[in-house]
């Protein structure tokens, strides 16, 4: 009750402050108390060159690509979407060659896949990883925009039933690696995972554990349908909200940080201008792990289209009407 009164008082106070046409172009907004949350359509942006927004080939990437694209559209930019480019190698090539002007990449992935940093050498601290990636990107003429707060890292998952049955209830990778049946366990992952140092190879190197690898396009289907015992999953997966799955903790911190940083070509970054850059920062601000899981759930569980999910996100968060 008291909380309600306090909230009401706060709202009334806030209403009394500021003025109607505050187009402050806020750069360091803190969510609340920001009247410029709504993206303003600036007709000057329509005269600029069309911005091509790309993305990689899985749900979260489609959602992020759509969010950035729709946000820029709301700001009046002409936007073309080239989502579902493919794996990161293809996306990066497209970005460097100018086929796309921007796409969201994970800091850890860029360091290990583009800039020849060995998985073990990637800074474990998100900001340090981001700064390193930013420097390396800059050499290629690409601006790595500030990172998101959420990260989407690899997790090892299994069903709660299998955890009891096969893993003896163990909850960390170190413990699982020491189990007597450790090498007989099978783990499912996307094809490239088998040879990636930040995926299956990492298990070998960091935990001295070599489970059987099952190449599978699905993430949770193999675990559910008994095609494998465990699976490499993503920390922001919608399925994790179902409460069916148990996460085995990466206690030795094998996986590097994977925060999102929108990689933008130099020329496009200038085209965006302060306004455009702020729009990007604004819309990615509320994206924490819970928010991403919700958005991912809408695509992977509710089977909604990423385009609609992004539109709903922008609307519900007050960025568009």
């Amino acid at each position: 009750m008291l909380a309600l009164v306090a909230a009401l008082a706060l709202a009334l106070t806030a209403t009394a402050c500021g003025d109607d046409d505050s187009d402050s172009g806020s750069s360091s907004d803190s969510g609340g108390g920001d009247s410029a949350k709504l993206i303003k359509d600036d007709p000057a942006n329509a005269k600029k060159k069309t911005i091509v927004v790309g993305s990689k080939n899985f749900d979260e990437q489609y959602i992020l690509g759509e969010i950035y694209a729709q946000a820029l559209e709301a700001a009046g930019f002409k936007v073309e979407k080239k989502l579902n480019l493919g794996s990161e190698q293809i996306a990066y090539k497209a970005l460097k060659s100018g086929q796309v002007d921007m796409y969201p990449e994970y800091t850890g992935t860029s360091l290990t896949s583009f800039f020849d940093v060995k998985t073990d050498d990637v800074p474990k601290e998100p900001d340090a990883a981001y700064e390193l990636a930013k420097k390396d990107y800059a050499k290629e003429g690409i601006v790595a925009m500030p990172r998101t707060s959420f990260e989407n890292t690899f997790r090892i998952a299994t069903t709660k039933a299998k955890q009891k049955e096969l893993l003896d209830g163990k909850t960390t990778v170190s413990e699982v690696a020491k189990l007597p049946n450790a090498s007989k366990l099978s783990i499912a992952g996307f094809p490239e995972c088998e040879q990636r140092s930040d995926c299956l190879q990492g298990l070998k190197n960091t935990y001295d554990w070599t489970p059987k690898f099952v190449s599978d396009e699905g993430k949770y289907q193999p675990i559910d349908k008994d095609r494998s015992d465990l699976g490499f999953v993503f920390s922001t997966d919608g399925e994790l909200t179902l409460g069916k799955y148990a996460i085995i903790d990466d206690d030795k911190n094998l996986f590097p940080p994977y925060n999102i940083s929108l990689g933008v070509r130099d020329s496009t970054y200038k085209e965006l201008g302060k306004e455009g850059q702020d729009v990007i920062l604004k819309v990615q601000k509320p994206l924490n792990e819970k928010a991403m899981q919700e958005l991912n759930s809408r695509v992977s569980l509710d089977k909604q289209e990423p385009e609609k999910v992004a539109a709903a996100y922008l609307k519900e968060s007050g960025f568009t009407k």
Partner: protein
Amino acid sequence: MSTTIALLGDFGDAVQFIFQERESVGGGVQVGGPEELWGFAKTHLLVSLAAMLIASAISVPIGLYLGHKGKGEFLAISVSNVGRAVPAVVLVFFLVAYLGNGFLNITVVLVALAIPPILTNTYVGTAQVDRDIVDAARGMGMKSSQIVRQVRLPLAMPTIFAGIRTSAVSVLATATIGPYADVKTLGWPILTPQTYGFSGQLGAALLVALITLLADAGIGYLQHVVTPKGIKLAGEQGPTRRRLALPTRRREAAT
């Protein structure tokens, strides 16, 4: 222009990929080289051969029967045709739910892909055998099964083999989707560019193309061998049909 030069370089790189191991794009693993690729090739050939044998075993008898009876043209041709439109990738994922990953899954998909050309061609080749010849055989007292075996089949051989050729090429080319069901055919380097890089993709693709060309030529040779001398001498493609100057009744023969 620069892309062309780059491609020549990539081409050389791809050939090198076939003959020499190297480190993967992401680092940490050795990929490529004759040993690894031979392993992929073996799986590739195995699954393709299995599919072709099964598909032939199914299609040829059915095609012979229907072609001899003259019934079921719609089944043999139209349904067949439409069957080609089912994307193999769709089937793979669809079957995963029922057959799981693995060899069986891919084999079933490739069999489904291989049947249409063989079935259509067997049907057409059988049905198109000259009426006169069949009548003559009947007149000599041959039973249906004898007619099929001793008259229709030999005369239809070239057309049937043409169908087998087409199937084989499709099957070998499509076996590259094996990785979608966890079967490591030569499609593995193509579908995992993060590890194998562009030259790896190109190298594997070249190998598939090479194998396919060899298979095509090989079956073409077999086709030549099994064509009854009489037809070869007549010099025409497929069974002869000569009827005055009137247009001949020709049904579609698949390539």
